[in-house]
């Protein structure tokens, strides 16, 4: 079994705090870059220039935003449900970090080696919904409440196609099995283990996006809905609900939601890379670099989709999920199961 980073640190007590610090640092830099990338990509798509004044190519723009948000006055509106209002940003922010710990950046570089990592990631994804609902309900603002109700309905209904499409990949992995480089023996692959999934693709040199194209598309679309992005950004629909569930949040609390949204986007694209685009395996470059490059490509596609499409209406969102996505993903799962059973 690949030694995890913690074994490298010979199980000293400091392992967990260091790992947490590493993740926080990496994520913060990632979010800074992602926000800058979003503004630059949107600028390039719209034939303009995006931030250029701050830092060499406007690279320090998000740093300036963060500095400003830190020093903003934290307003707590008067008749607000205080515990919910204050807890919501933290709850939105915390599970997101935990999910990153499970990601297999390379064969050996994995923070928490877990047999059913996939399940964990989906579980942490679910917590974010609670946070959004607390934020919406807590800030005693009709727009926020509407946004919260919408986000709960959307996240719950889009988790089903998400998980079903991931399941079809798990089925394929369990069927294929793979030989461990060292042991040489056929190991019963545990589809839920993220590193096993990537190893399966690595061994057979076959990315699952080719094996399961429909699952990949369904996964991508429901991932967009999970992270409240673009055609599905109904919870914080700018043109209808002013600013959706984070209408009443100012300063650092708002930036935590911002942080959570972009890290969610990162996790979902990392998972897509693990499930469909062969994790760390790539010809020349080292594992983690491939992993990040691929996830940034997925994030670019998410941004590209955001700046192209108008927003779906709420009931259309629901009908699209229940009438198109779920039947399609169930069909795909049955087809995979049938093919796997036959082989």
């Amino acid at each position, binding site marked *: 079994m690949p030694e995890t980073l913690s074994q490298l640190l010979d199980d000293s007590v400091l392992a967990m705090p260091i790992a947490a610090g590493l993740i926080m640092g990496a994520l913060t830099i990632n979010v800074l870059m992602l926000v800058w990338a979003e503004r630059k990509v949107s600028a*390039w798509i719209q*034939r*303009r*220039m995006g931030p250029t004044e701050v830092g060499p190519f406007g690279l320090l723009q998000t740093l300036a935003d963060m500095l400003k948000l830190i020093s903003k006055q934290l307003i707590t509106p008067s008749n607000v449900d205080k515990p919910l209002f204050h807890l919501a940003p933290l709850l939105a922010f915390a599970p997101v970090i935990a999910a990153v710990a499970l990601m297999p950046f390379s064969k050996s570089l994995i923070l928490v080696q877990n047999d059913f990592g996939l399940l964990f990631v989906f579980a942490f994804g679910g917590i974010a919904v609670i946070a959004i609902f607390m934020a919406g309900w807590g800030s005693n603002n009709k727009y926020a409440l509407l946004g919260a109700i919408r986000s709960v309905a959307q996240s719950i209904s889009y988790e089903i196609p998400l998980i079903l499409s991931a399941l079809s990949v798990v089925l394929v992995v369990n069927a294929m099995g793979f030989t461990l480089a060292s042991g040489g023996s056929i190991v019963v692959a545990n589809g839920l283990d993220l590193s096993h999934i990537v190893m399966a693709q690595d061994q057979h040199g076959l990315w699952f996006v080719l094996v399961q194209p429909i699952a990949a598309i369904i996964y991508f679309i429901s991932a967009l809905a999970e992270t409240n992005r673009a055609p599905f950004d109904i919870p914080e629909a700018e043109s209808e609900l002013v600013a959706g569930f984070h209408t009443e949040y100012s300063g650092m609390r708002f930036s935590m939601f911002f942080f959570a949204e972009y890290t969610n986007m990162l996790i979902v694209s990392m998972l897509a890379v693990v499930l469909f685009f062969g994790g760390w395996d790539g010809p020349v470059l080292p594992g983690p670099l491939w992993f990040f490059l691929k996830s940034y490509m997925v994030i670019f596609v998410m941004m*590209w989709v955001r700046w*192209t499409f108008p927003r779906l209406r709420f009931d259309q969102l629901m009908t699209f999920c229940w009438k198109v996505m779920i039947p399609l993903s169930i069909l795909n799962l049955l087809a995979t199961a049938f093919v796997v059973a036959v082989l």
Partner: protein
Amino acid sequence: MGYFGKVLSGFGSLLTGMRITFSQFAKTFFGRKNVTLQYPKEQPKLAPAFRSAIKLIRFEETGTHDCVACKACERICPSYCIKLSGGKVEGIKKKRVAEFEMDFSLCSLCGLCIDACPTDTLEYSKVYEEAGYNRDWRVDLVAEFREYEAEFVEKQRVIEEKAATAKKAKAEAAKKAKEAKKAKEAEKAKEAEAEAADTAEKPDTAEKPPALEAKPAKADAPAKAEVPTAEVPTAEAPKS
């Protein structure tokens, strides 16, 4: 098939949308060509007709403006943003404006004052990037002309005197010409009698009536009183 057809055609339309945005993205990112005018670095190319606050025109001949403080613009301005005062200047007949203040924060750039100005001395300035901490945007139009004012009055006085002397001279010339004409007529009259006297002896030389001497064309219309500059001899170039 209708169901899947609809889903597929819908998906197709999404893809065309993405193709278009990517082509725009490629034009900007790879083609290095965006539509942004980087304002602080590049100044915009303003049209000649661009309208900003009004200002007094500096004419070449006189080197200064030509406002006679007739308050036509103050009366016509719909937003009451022009306040000017001025009038007679000792030494010259022409009226001059002393104070011309215009509040640019009230001005709606309609241009009625420019049409109403009898001496066409107002025009739009080309100032477009004004921003400041202060609430007071009154613009003093006469500020740039103050130091030329004394010199202009001096030159104007000289011109008017010359014009006055020229008029006096012409008046005398006209008087002399009249006397000369009278004198000539008087001689002609005498010759006529003399001829009449000797024609009395030989009647055959038909008397040729003296060619009616063309009445000296009266000097052109008396110079218009109020704009003497029209007939001013070319003043030397103003040291602007």
